[in-house]
């Protein structure tokens, strides 16, 4: 059987984490090709519904990346992200999906290395968790 090659969705805020991802690119920092970035203006605009939809649909992991707390381009936008995502993890946990499939982290515009680190770690973690069980469920 071929090695499990997770599909991962990442939401990056335009001002910090997306810029951080760009910086990682400029620095040619290598990382696994599993993540697919959706650019949003602020991590606080990531609807929990997106995460739940993605995981229900079989996506193996979702990363939500924003500016560091206090550094949000929109003052306190990311405070909401910091409060919502842990609850989304609970929703996953209770229904029997490993909450580690959703990860929230902060990457600033200058943290190319951190972006690389977070992505590499996360892909590794998801590989350990194995495929999203929802892939197998037939409704």
């Amino acid at each position: 059987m071929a090695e499990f090659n997770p599909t991962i969705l990442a939401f990056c805020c335009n001002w910090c984490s997306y810029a951080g991802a760009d910086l990682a690119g400029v620095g040619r920092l290598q990382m696994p090709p599993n993540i697919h970035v959706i650019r949003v203006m602020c991590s606080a605009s990531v609807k929990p519904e997106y995460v739940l939809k993605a995981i229900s649909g079989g996506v193996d992991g979702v990363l939500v990346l924003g500016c560091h707390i206090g550094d949000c381009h929109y003052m306190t936008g990311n405070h909401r992200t910091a409060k919502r995502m842990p609850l989304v993890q609970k929703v996953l946990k209770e229904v029997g999906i490993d909450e580690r499939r959703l990860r929230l982290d902060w990457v600033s515009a200058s943290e190319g290395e951190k972006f690389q680190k977070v992505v590499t770690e996360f892909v590794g973690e998801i590989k350990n968790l194995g495929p999203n069980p929802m892939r197998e469920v037939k409704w």
Partner: protein
Amino acid sequence: MPRIGVFVCHCGHNIAATVNVEKVIEFAKGLPDVVVAEHSLYSCSEEGLGSIRKSIEKNKLDRVVVAACTPRTHEPLFRKACEMAGVNKYLFEFVNIREHCSWIHTKEPDPATEKAKKLIAMGVAKAGLLEPQKEAESNVIPTAVVIGGGLTGLTAAASLVAQGIDTHLVEMSGKLGGVLGEIEIIGPEFSRSKELLDELVNDLKASSNAKIHLDTRVTAVSGFIGNFEVTIETKGKSEKIPAGAIILATGATELAPTGEYGYGSIPGVITQLELERRLAKGDVPKRAVFIQCVGSRQPGREYCSRVCCNASLKNALRIVEAEPNSSVSIIHRDIMSYGTASERLYKEASDKGVVFLRYGLERPANVTQKQKGLVVEVYDETIDENIDIDTDLVVLATPMVSREDARDVAKLLKVPLDKYGFFLEAHVKLRPVEFATDGVFICGSARWPSSVSECMGQGLAAAAKASIPIRKGKVVVEAITCWADADKCAACGSCVIACPYEAIEIVEEEGRRYAKVNETLCKGCGTCVASCPNDAMQQRGFTSRQLSSMIDALIKNAMEET
């Protein structure tokens, strides 16, 4: 049915060396609603942009997807190209296959190619749902309001007036000049503050553009950039000033000691400003001891007030110069006389016999009253022993602290404070002297304790920033603002709580309550979107259907592949 064109950029070798562009294009051709998929060596080059324009016309495209580098640098360029070809610039979608793909997967061409395909599928899915947008434009009232008549406010106002901009200067006290008004000599070059202030004030008084309001407070601020209404109240009667921009220069105050070193109980223990007043009256002591960092750089007030060391140096020099055989000591924790000129002051002071003693926070000096004068008992860290200094005067160098009405002002203008009550600018390095709230600017010691030159520099900076919208005469809001679908909205108010800009309110029309976004206040963060349970709240260019379609596209392609 949308007609989408996909343009994949080689970016020389940057992309093509890793991603198999041909394969990607073949894939793109098969995506829903894609009419044409082409490639170019450098899409951002003149011929690259030209061929995109031609293709738009030739294939009657109404949506454009460019797969190349990062939108954060090149988006404006391609948007412009679309506009030139008659496609609304908001019908353009950027897919980043360089920074986010080829550059970070250089050793894995095949997976990188597969990833590029998926990213493009996602971009195409979103593009199909994009809608043309019109950028909201509003006129700017060519008037500025400067709050605070201290040095900073005067500088800002004078600069605006000099540009011919109608400017209202609002000062709560009866006279202009603020803290500097109480200081006679300005360090390090020992110029007279009066000359500086008089010049600024006369400039203003002379100008027909300037209007000075003394004994006046701001009682209300409404509106948004270009269109504020500032309500002021002078001796009980209030007036509404329409303005395009607001500059906040409310300054700071000297911390009043709370009994430290016998202040208030022992005569002869005074603050820096009290000393300034004495010196101005020519009342020069024979013996003086300055104690630095009284109430600052300690738990609860960790910051360095930055101006106190220079003030003490300046005044110590004034004393030794006026009184040849005077004895002056400065008891400090570190001398923060940063910068060339101030450092010179420090050297000059020690050359002229000013004694510097270093004390520690844990062992503060002790002041006692003897029949002839005061005695300052201090433990000198450098020689590790207690020293008694006889003196006539003890000067407490207390820090500048935020004014206690700072919170009210912050509320009026809906701008944030830091934990010390100083005003918090949008971004220290990226957007100095600006607030996150457009059209409102911050300068001087209200932002952070600042020296005379810093105050003036910031005043000028704020004036320059404030004059931009006023000179332009128009403000344009990028069409990424949020709106509420009134029919869907259940008026639960989550968005009202969520919005960092207080841009949303629940309105009532024909008995129906629903959320309404003031799109000039909206900065397009989308925090409200994620707060909305029934998806009534949407952000232009990032609607839930658009983003969901990207997720669907990823799932579709990823799941089929595995």
